[in-house]
């Protein structure tokens, strides 16, 4: 019986790939210009710390984290689907990609939310106050 791939259509995966792709354009630009600052003065720790203690910057970096992870891993899974044909192996790939996503997300969230360490509590308190 021919596998028609019914069910997991891929409409949402396709749609969110486009959506995240569009979001990534401005976010990556801002990220590159601020975090990969190649101008003369380099990237002092204090500058990064100052920026990341601002909740708006944190929200931006967290958005970047989620959007980039989704876009990258969803794209990777789309490519894998072209090469991996056995349903069992596909499920394995899907699980590994999802797991990688979750682990990287956890690392990312801890890094962004908890940076800079000394001001962790303060910044959490800041972003919690309406």
């Amino acid at each position, binding site marked *: 019986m021919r*596998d*028609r791939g019914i*069910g997991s*259509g891929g*409409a949402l995966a396709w749609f969110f790939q486009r959506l995240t792709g569009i979001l990534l354009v401005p976010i990556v630009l801002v990220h590159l210009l601020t975090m990969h600052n190649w101008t003369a003065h380099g990237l002092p720790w204090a500058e990064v710390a100052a920026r990341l203690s601002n909740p708006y910057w944190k929200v931006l970096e967290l958005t970047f984290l989620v959007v980039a992870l989704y876009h990258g891993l969803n794209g990777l899974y789309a490519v894998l689907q*072209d090469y991996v*044909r056995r349903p069992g192996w596909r499920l394995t790939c899907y699980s590994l990609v999802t797991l990688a996503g979750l682990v990287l997300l956890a690392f990312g969230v801890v890094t962004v939310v908890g940076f800079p360490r000394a001001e962790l509590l303060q910044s959490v308190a800041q972003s919690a106050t309406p």
Partner: protein
Amino acid sequence: MQRTFRIFRFNPAEDQEPRYETFTIEVQESWTILDALNEIKWRHDGTLTYRRSCRHGICGSCAMMINGVNDLACEKQVAQIRGTITIEPLKSFPIVRDLLVDQERFFENLRLVKPWLIARTPPPTDKERLQSPEARKLLDGTWQCILCGACTSSCPVFWDNDNFLGPAALLKAFRYVADSRDEGLDARLEALDSKYGVWRCHTVFNCVEACPKALNPTDGIVQLRRRLISEKL
């Protein structure tokens, strides 16, 4: 004028491996590739096998790979190509013999998208199901498909994925989905909105380059996607 043709030969009943055979023949200025193949078959080697019927680009029988590009043998002119002309069967279909391929998978995919008008509304009793000229115009670029398979066999996703419907079937689906008289989107969803339907296309655009009728299957696929997404949201 002498021209050299390097032709893919394979007879699964006898040959272990495909091989290429070279024929140098006298051709006329105005000949198509099909004329040259006929000349070879009729005067040089009667065992050369290929499919053709109408010899004027309408039946879709004679699609093959000519110097690496899918085209209709009966439309491609010998004079359009310089040097040796290599002729091979359409990629990714099982070879029956020489340039003749088994297109069953291609037609099975076509059947899956239900390529006919699906209408629940009963037709008017006094006239045909009419359509405005504007609505009819929307179908231009879809109905001209002659089902030759040049696009589908040029698609890398189709080469690699046994279940992908391929550009021809998807363009045909779009031809009906875009038809103002058709009410069959639901009936086609199972095939279209699947892992092997519109979402599998990677917009490689090979199909657009391959189509001998200058149609744009990728555009049809993208419009189908838009329709499916707006249907979902």
